[in-house]
């Protein structure tokens, strides 16, 4: 990177601060101070290493602290290489950096060198979403969906003389070309916004100093946006397992793959490999996939995926992986051993990348999962250090990291303290069929509101009637009985992710079931079903709770 060479003022903040205090206040201060600092840097940085600078004290109430600082005068005058130094150029980091720069801040961001597989030493501008998450995943989903479309197209009169075959290397090459293009675009975006990009591993040295591979940079604010990485539990033979990073960049098609885990990543990869004609086995600890999702959605997506040929092994926990002489892998679980896998993928969660960042030594508090603790404004326990995105383990979604990054830039550099708003955040699972949802699950809604009306539709879409495939669509609206507000919306079936977005606007705006009903349908679509649900499938009432455990199942049965 060309950018790495010219900005590198090795400057330790505490001493420079003292120095600046002696300068007359009226002195115009150059923004980057690079020529000035070069002379000072050699001895200052050495000096710094032995000198502990006390953390500046801020008002105990966060809100005030934020205001005071963003408004200007409260902080002692002091100069830094940058107004903001961001560690990690993924979704949240890039967003915060760009917006901060747009608001007039001088900003640098550091990021590890590009690789499709992440590690302590590799990353890449764009981050998980672009390089090892949303984007390559979705491209693989597109690729794998075709096998279903070939089947569908038969029902519409299309015929194949020979069964369509998939060439793995074409897909990988085209996918990687796209990732290269995107990482380039992200670099450009930073560049255009005037953000200095530094390639290397950032580590926090003190509340205002970041070390990137031995060079020190000072900043008024430091943002940690280093994301998360897949986590593989330590069981015998775990070295033979792959994670989602590797699964997105396999050199050849896995013939028979075991996927351990029941979360969205597990389901997405199950769909991908199944569509690309691998034999797929999913091992989940629970009875159902997708813990945390609406129970009916969990049942429905499991059934639909099984119909497409994915084999689920429920209530099985992995205990060991054994490699046999022929190179194939066996997965031993509490229930037995399944043999003959070419690949075993663990989709058993992700962990924040908080190791070796210097957090403990500066006093940035980390919770027991390794996530950085932040307040509502994304501020860590050290007032000049902030964190957004997966490293904070709040809601680990790209658009949420974007929201957090944007809010932070506003808070710091636009005099507008802004809290990210986590209400009614929609999300999608790109399983096949996909899921789209916003708001509460039925279970959460009962807990929170007690009395709710549930509307469901389970139908065979027009396309499936012609294709003859067993595809169905499930939709669900959850309405607060007292206010008539739609508090949850769930869908599993073709186009769910696209369909849910518009409804998310409606749910976020607090619209009622009456508002949904007043909207005319778009015919013929699947989505129109959401505005034509006339009769509740069940009404759940907690009011008659006096007789004790009038569970929701009982009422469910009575409701129809």
């Amino acid at each position: 990177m060309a950018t790495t060479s010219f900005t590198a003022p090795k400057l330790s903040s505490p001493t420079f601060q003292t120095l600046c205090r002696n300068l007359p206040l009226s002195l115009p201060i150059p923004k980057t101070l690079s020529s000035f600092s070069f002379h000072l840097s050699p001895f200052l940085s050495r000096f710094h290493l032995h000198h502990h600078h006390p953390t500046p004290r801020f008002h105990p109430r966060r809100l005030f602290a934020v205001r005071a600082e963003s408004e200007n005068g409260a902080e002692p005058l002091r100069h830094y290489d940058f107004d903001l130094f961001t560690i990690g150029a993924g979704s949240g980091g890039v967003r915060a950096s760009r917006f901060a720069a747009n608001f007039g801040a001088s900003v640098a961001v550091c990021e590890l060198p590009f690789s499709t597989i992440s590690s302590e030493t590799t990353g890449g501008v764009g981050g998980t979403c672009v390089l090892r998450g949303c984007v390559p995943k979705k491209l693989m989903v597109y690729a794998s969906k075709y096998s279903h479309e070939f089947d569908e197209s038969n029902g519409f009169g299309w015929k194949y003389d020979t069964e369509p075959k998939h060439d793995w290397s074409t897909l990988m090459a085209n996918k990687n070309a796209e990732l290269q293009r995107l990482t380039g675009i992200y670099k450009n975006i930073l560049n255009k916004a005037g953000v200095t990009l530094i390639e290397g591993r950032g580590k926090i040295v003190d509340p205002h100093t970041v070390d990137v591979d031995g060079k020190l940079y000072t900043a008024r604010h430091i943002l940690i946006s280093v994301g998360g990485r897949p986590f593989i539990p330590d069981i015998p033979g775990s070295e033979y397992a792959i994670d989602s990073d590797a699964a997105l960049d396999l050199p050849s098609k896995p013939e028979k793959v075991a996927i351990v885990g029941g979360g969205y990543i597990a389901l997405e990869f199950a769909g991908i490999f199944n569509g690309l004609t691998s034999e797929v086995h999913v091992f989940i600890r629970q009875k159902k996939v997708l813990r945390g999702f609406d129970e009916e959605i969990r049942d429905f997506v499991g059934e639909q995926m099984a119909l497409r040929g994915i084999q689920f092994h429920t209530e099985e926990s992995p205990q060991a992986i054994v490699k046999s002489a022929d190179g194939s892998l066996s997965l031993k679980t509490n229930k037995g051993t399944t043999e003959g896998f070419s690949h075993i993928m663990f989709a058993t969660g992700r962990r924040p990348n908080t190791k070796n960042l210097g957090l403990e030594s500066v006093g940035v508090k980390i919770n027991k999962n390794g996530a950085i603790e932040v307040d509502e404004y994304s501020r860590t326990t050290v007032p000049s250090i902030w964190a957004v995105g997966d490293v904070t383990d709040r809601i680990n979604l790209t658009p949420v990291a974007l929201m957090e990054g944007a809010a932070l830039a506003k808070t710091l550099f636009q005099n507008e303290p802004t809290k990210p708003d986590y209400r009614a955040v929609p999300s999608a699972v790109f399983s096949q069929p996909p899921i789209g949802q916003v708001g509460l699950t039925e279970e959460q809604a009962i807990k929170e509101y007690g009395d709710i009306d549930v509307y469901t539709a389970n139908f065979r879409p027009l396309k499936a009637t012609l294709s003859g495939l067993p595809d169905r669509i499930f939709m669900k609206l959850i309405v607060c009985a007292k206010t008539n507000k739609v508090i949850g919306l769930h869908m599993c079936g073709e186009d769910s992710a696209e369909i849910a977005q518009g409804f998310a606007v409606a749910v976020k705006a607090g619209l009622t079931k009456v508002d949904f009903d007043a909207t005319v349908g778009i015919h013929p679509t699947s989505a129109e079903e959401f505005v034509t649900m006339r009769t509740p499938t069940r009404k759940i009432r907690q009011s008659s709770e006096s007789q004790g455990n009038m569970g929701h199942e009982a009422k469910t049965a009575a409701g129809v």
Partner: protein
Amino acid sequence: MARKMLVDEEMNQTNQEEAYYDFDLFVIGAGSGGVRAARFSANYGAKVGICELPFHPISSEVIGGVGGTCVIRGCVPKKILVYGAAFGSELEDARNYGWELNEKLDFNWKKLLHKKTDEIIRLNGIYKRLLSNAGVKLFEGEGKIVGPNEVEVTQLDGTKLSYSAKHILIATGSRAHRPPIPGQGLGITSDEALSLEDLPKHAVVFGGGYIAVEFASIWRGLGANVDLFFRKELPLRGFDDEMRAVVARNLEGRGINLHPQTNLTELIKTDNGIKVTTDHGEELIADVVLFATGRLPNSKRLNLEAVGVELDNTGAVKVDEYSRTSIPSIWAVGDVTNRMNLTPVALMEGTCFAKTVFGKEPSKPDYSHVPCAVFSIPPLSVVGLSEEQAIEQANGDVLVFTSTFNPMKNTVSGRQEKTVMKLVVDAETDKVLGASMCGPDAPEIMQGIAVALKCGATKAQFDSTVGIHPSAAEEFVTMRSVSRRITCSGKPKTNL
């Protein structure tokens, strides 16, 4: 207000007069609006009869079928063909995703047609069952109004049945019409186009409306050469001009030859096919010529004039806001009234009618923010005002947000086709006045946006909604910078 009182007043008399009529409601026409009104009225306790012409995919004065245009000759079969046709380009796109397919793919039109017909026969049966389950009595035959409370049904064998009804509902829909040019008999309408024996090799489509662009897309997707002729500079008059241009570009991008500002003047049968002549003097040979030049209300053989039901100059039955005709006991819903000719609107009108007449709840259909879709390939979907309408109607400035992007799927498939989205916002109130999108999944995406617009959502509310990543739809909630601001006084606008 006066009308509302009249409705109420009349309903108070219902109980006394009930006994004098064979039916509380007799519906002529069992399409979307008629079936909905009949069923809902029956659910309110009314005794309901309905008549419909015998079933056949191609309609005429004496042919129809329970389910109506939407199910038999419109939305449903059209969408089925669009699905079928969309596979053509889908399969091409598969190659860059690593799929190895034969150079030339086989497509069997007869199979698709056969399955389509099976499906509409199935739906026809479902509709009949819906009626019988609701307790509605179905008569097969041609209905005619004899008096304000009297209908006559001519059955297939020629026998005539006569019934009295407290209310009569006309829901006979509309039919495609052909322009009066020499040789028009050689052309077909959308009815026949949905049931062609063979897939055309070279199709000429005349018309610029949604039906024209949909059929052009279907045939092109299935491999035919298609020439599309229309009178205006762009297709889809009435839609947002910018989006019209996008559709035109996409149609061309998919290989359809566009002939704007061109009329067909004559069709002549030749040995090689139909010779088509235009008013620009062009001549070309086609094996199919489709007239998609509009539809006319089916009001001719109902004896309306004799009873005093007023029609407008297009032949549409004139109704008030409650769908009542000039004869108080006679009502009309759906395409025959030529208000907004969409299935869900006919459903809304049918529902409101039933509520008004039998549900003791006078209800006017609400035509604001009715979303709709054009199933061209790729599709267009809109809700609310076009930019032009917004400028026309706004008191203050209008903000336009647009986003043109390469959908993610195309980054690998290599397809050169942009998705375009647009929000039109009232600068003063921040309300989103209109939304449109042209690109894959647009109709599915627009439905939720329509709920938001219907309820007066503001741009700030759109912005506060978190995106679903990676989707196309998320673009609607991430349009940060305004593309242009149109001040009310200036109103600069291209005249497309």
